[in-house]
């Protein structure tokens, strides 16, 4: 399987502090990969790096010929200002940014696609509702509708199933399954291990560095999970030491 995504000893982080440390490996085209790990393991950071929001501190992420803008990225719901006065329809329509750009209008066909995407996530009739009036689950469905419109070969979803009820999870997982079936490459950051075991063929277990990466059954062992937990804590100690260092020098 040809790779769609190659990590070449990549380190990502903020203010020179690594959040993803020396990651190497390939994600094959058409793969369905779960990215899991404890809080602070670098899942979101890695996905931001792939989406081009964050530049690597060192190393490189090779998209194998894909432009950053051809990736569909679904941010965490907390990053969105849901009090902004914009309708569900207008919000989803931004998924067509690549074809409309700054000034392009929406013709009848594009409007049809937007309505169809909203219907595909089960939100018919919500087109004119301000996004502030949607529930958490409905907002998440709306984000999936936008990803649908983006029609991307590489799809990156940052914790799309947090605090989502069983019915909605099932619907959204079916969409992910559908994208997988269409041969798209899909990376999903998740917390629910059972969900990963039943739905995702491959798993990357992250704890700043990669702990395990491969078929889900082999990656998600009790030992690996324990190692991941400990690695995160060890790195926190290290960060505290660095801060001390600065403080002593300042004094």
């Amino acid at each position, binding site marked *: 399987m040809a790779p769609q995504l190659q990590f070449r000893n990549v380190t990502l982080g903020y203010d020179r502090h690594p959040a993803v440390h020396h990651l190497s490996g390939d994600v094959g085209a058409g793969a369905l990969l779960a990215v899991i790990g404890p809080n602070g393991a670098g899942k979101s950071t890695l996905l*931001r790096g792939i*989406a*081009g*929001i964050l530049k690597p501190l060192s190393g490189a992420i090779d998209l194998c010929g894909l432009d*950053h*803008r051809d*990736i569909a*990225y679904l*941010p965490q719901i907390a*990053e*969105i*200002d849901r009090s*902004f*006065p*914009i*309708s569900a329809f207008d*919000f989803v329509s*931004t998924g067509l*940014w*690549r074809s409309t*750009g*700054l*000034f392009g209008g929406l013709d009848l066909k594009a409007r049809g696609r937007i309505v169809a995407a909203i219907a595909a996530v089960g939100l018919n009739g919500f087109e004119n509702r*301000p*996004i*502030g009036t949607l529930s958490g689950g409905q907002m998440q469905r709306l984000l999936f509708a*936008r990803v649908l419109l983006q029609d991307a070969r590489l799809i990156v979803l940052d914790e799309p199933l947090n605090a989502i009820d069983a019915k909605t999870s099932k619907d959204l997982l079916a969409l992910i399954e559908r994208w997988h079936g269409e041969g798209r490459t899909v990376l999903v950051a998740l917390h629910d291990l059972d969900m990963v075991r039943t739905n995702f063929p491959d798993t990357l277990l992250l704890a700043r560095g990669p702990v395990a990466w491969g078929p889900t059954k082999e990656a998600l062992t009790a030992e690996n999970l324990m190692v991941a937990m400990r690695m995160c804590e060890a790195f926190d100690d290290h960060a505290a030491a660095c801060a001390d260092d600065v403080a002593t020098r300042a004094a």
Partner: protein
Amino acid sequence: MLADALLAPFADFAFMRRALAAVIALSLGGGPIGVFLMLRRMSLVGDAMAHAILPGAAIGFLLSGLNLFAMTTGGLIAGFAVAILSGVVARSTGLKEDASLASFYLTSLALGVTIVSIKGTNVDLLHVLFGNILALDDQTLLLVAINATITLVVLAVIYRPLVIESVDPLFLRTVSRAGAPAHLLFLVLIVVNLVSGFQALGTLLSVGLMILPASIARFWSRDITPMICIAAASAIVSGYVGLVVSFQTRIPSGPAIILVAATLYGFSVLFGRNGGVVRQLFPAPHLEA
């Protein structure tokens, strides 16, 4: 009789016509800017920037008297200097951006008042602090109109990225590089509109015709397009009524305009369709679904 009171001042006096034209131009540019300031939670940034432009305008005044072009250029330079400096201080030290901006604009305001009083009289100082929309000459009016035109054109260009950057900044960064330039241009537009407002309403009130109409609009619409229209319209109404009131009662024009806007705001807080007090106290019966 009533028509006389409402129309005669403008039919009879050229300075009233100029003032009305200026206030309409200010409203058309400042209304939309105010809505974005409010939605991006930058209302107080606008206020701070209004004070920040004072020393620049004052230096312009010092060098060439009440010359509009000099004062405007000075104001633009000072506005950007404060915006950039406070950004740099906030990023390179532990100081938060709001505290840093506050320090700079307070310094600016003190500096500006000092500079004006070195050369000018108390009348000049009053002019700088509160403006005088009734004393606008043709040249100033033209400048205000040009600024409003620039504002609307640039806003049309950066509208989409500005909206999406406000709702979902991370998503915008994955599909376009327009986010940062749009934000920067927006800052420029804020300063440009403040400089316009500065001529008419003075440093202390120029931001009033941006923020009050935007706050009014928030109570009447839940979509950004009507919100912008309502903001511009209520600014124009405040301007017109304020000028008439000022003409008939000798209340200074700037404060009269802002007080009329404040009255509209108070009415909106009480009776607004979205979150107005009365609506909350006496809600309509709930719906089936």
